[in-house]
């Protein structure tokens, strides 16, 4: 008998399912906190899962690459220093992952798994985490996933894809891990009508997303000396909102915190927009100005990563667009690149 690839889950089944899974692993879902902020937090019986509306302001990147990621602790000093590695990764399930955030994992995989070295922490988390996706019914005003090869119903990086049909979810089974996960809950077969409803919702969402810029051969158009950098970067405030909210920005710093007889070494998020990003001990800074750092951000995402891995470092989630305090819109910048002449690519 052919394996079924879709099934239906009652909406009221979702939280009980998540809670049952939480008995044996870490289960995260988008949960509303006070003042409106939605984050991926461990589920609890009184949690309000937020599945409607736009994608949560924070994605699940934090689970794979925690903002503060201890590497080891150390005690003693001198020749008697003892290191205690910190390596405690548990199986996990993340519910409500939007397709842009799922696809973002591919980019993180490129960086942490596919270079000469494999990042053990990332690999452990990635290998033990099941991603239950949620198709977007309502793209945000900053969203542009379709421009960069994604979709509000994309399946990249996900094990299951849920589509909200009101009182029930259409569930598309994408991997064996996803299939296995469903054994902990009650599903029923999907009907043709339900398949059609899900497809229609996806199509409606896709249609709402205009192409924001021409992503064809974008890497060639991200040029070093374009006058855009200076002009746009003038208003940049050098905060970390864009990079910290990005589902796949991954630059990190390594810091030590010590006390009199020991300490801890950890990784923490860094952002190319901070002045200190490449500032060196003696004071030299290869990216001293905002122009250099804005160019760095765009080039890293749309040129260097493309040249190295064939995939842009952007899934069009739109968070940076919507949250930038000064409305630096990455779509507008990319649309303009290639239309404004520069020395590397004179106007045709």
């Amino acid at each position: 008998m052919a394996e079924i690839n879709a099934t239906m889950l009652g909406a009221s089944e979702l939280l009980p399912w998540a809670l049952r899974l939480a008995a044996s692993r870490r289960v995260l879902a988008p949960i509303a906190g006070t003042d409106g902020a939605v984050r991926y937090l461990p589920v609890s019986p009184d949690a309000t899962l937020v599945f409607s509306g736009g994608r949560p302001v924070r994605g699940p990147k934090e689970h794979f690459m925690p903002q503060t990621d201890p590497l080891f602790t150390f005690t003693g000093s001198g020749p008697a220093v003892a290191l205690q590695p910190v390596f405690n990764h548990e199986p996990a399930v993340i519910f409500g992952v939007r397709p842009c955030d799922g696809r973002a994992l591919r980019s993180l995989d490129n960086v942490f798994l596919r270079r000469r070295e494999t990042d053990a922490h990332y690999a452990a988390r990635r290998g033990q985490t099941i991603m239950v996706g949620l198709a977007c019914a309502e793209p945000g005003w900053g969203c542009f996933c379709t421009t960069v090869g994604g979709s509000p119903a994309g399946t990249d990086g996900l094990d299951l894809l849920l589509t909200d049909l009101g009182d029930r979810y259409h569930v598309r089974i994408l991997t064996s891990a996803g299939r296995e996960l469903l054994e902990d809950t009650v599903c029923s077969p999907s009907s043709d009508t339900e398949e059609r409803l899900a497809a229609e919702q996806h199509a409606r969402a896709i249609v709402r997303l205009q192409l924001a810029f021409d992503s064809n051969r974008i890497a060639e158009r991200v040029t070093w000396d374009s006058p855009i950098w200076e002009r746009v970067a003038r208003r940049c405030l050098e905060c970390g909102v864009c990079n910290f909210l990005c589902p796949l920005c991954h630059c990190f710093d390594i810091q030590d915190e010590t006390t009199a007889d020991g300490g801890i070494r950890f990784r923490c998020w860094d952002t190319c927009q901070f002045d200190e990003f490449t500032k060196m001990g003696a004071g030299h800074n290869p990216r001293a100005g905002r122009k250099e750092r804005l160019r760095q951000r765009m080039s890293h995402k749309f040129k260097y990563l493309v040249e190295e891995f064939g995939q842009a470092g952007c899934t069009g989630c739109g968070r940076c667009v919507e949250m930038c305090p000064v409305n630096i819109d990455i779509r507008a910048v990319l649309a303009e690149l290639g239309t404004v002449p520069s020395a590397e690519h004179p106007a045709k």
Partner: protein
Amino acid sequence: MNELVEAMRGTAARLLNGKEVALVLGYEAGSVSFRTAPAFIQHAEDAPRLVWNPFCTNNLAAYLPELKGVGRIAVMAKGCDARSIATLIQEHQIPREQVMILGIPCVGMIDVEQLLVAGERGPGTTVTCGPDGMLTVASAGGQRAVPLSEVLQGRCTNCEHHVPSIADEVLGNAPAPIQASGDAFGAAAELAGRSAEDRRAFWRERFERCIRCYGCREVCPACYCRTCFLDKPAPRWTSKANTLEDTWMFHAVRAFHLAGRCVSCGECERVCPMDIPLTLMNRMLAHEVQEKFGYTAGLQIDGIQPLGTFESYDPDPAEHA
């Protein structure tokens, strides 16, 4: 609104053509109809880029300290922005003669998150501002009329300084004042009335959300230290780890560094991606500074701020007095 925009553009062109200023700081259209972006106008022919609408929320004073060497700068300043500029002049971050303050009497800025309801947050939504403070929100679901007064940012409903306290030129006429719906200390007063344990829990929950993006610090005109205490390796006041205690320390210290200097422009809270109610701290401190020292930030361009001085009759807090 239109004649104000014309006045802005005309003034900017005149100042640049006459070489009275080297740069005009204002607002230009954003990438959507409900956002604007800070504009740096250096040529008179670019003056038509300037706009004015209830989305011109950015506090442009934040750019001034670094522009010191540029030459004379004209800045579009709402009431709150003008107070920030006054504070910067008072603190010798920019000479008075280098800034030309173009005051704009302000009827308030829109809280976009409050304005756009479910169904309107997607692509294609436009917001237009009509006369008499009526907004039209057009989205895939239809059209909706909203009075500006219902969707003002919190800091605007409490504003006592719509008309800039300091200005070289005032553009446009003073508008009808906004009916303040609460006093500036209001929400902070409610929190202050709760138990210490409640307040600890309140702030713990908020600070736990902080992602240390420093959007609040960077958008703030009063935060201009070349090396912030957060970035000093020695002494190490806060770790780069976002443990609760380090994040708590960050916010506690930054808020206290702004005591008597913050003008409650509210930008910190607007830009916070995690919806942390930062201005509660600033409002509490502004209230205390007013009560204890009779001082309000941004209403003077000289003199010494209250924590930089003392009086022999300051109350003596020592219990054994």
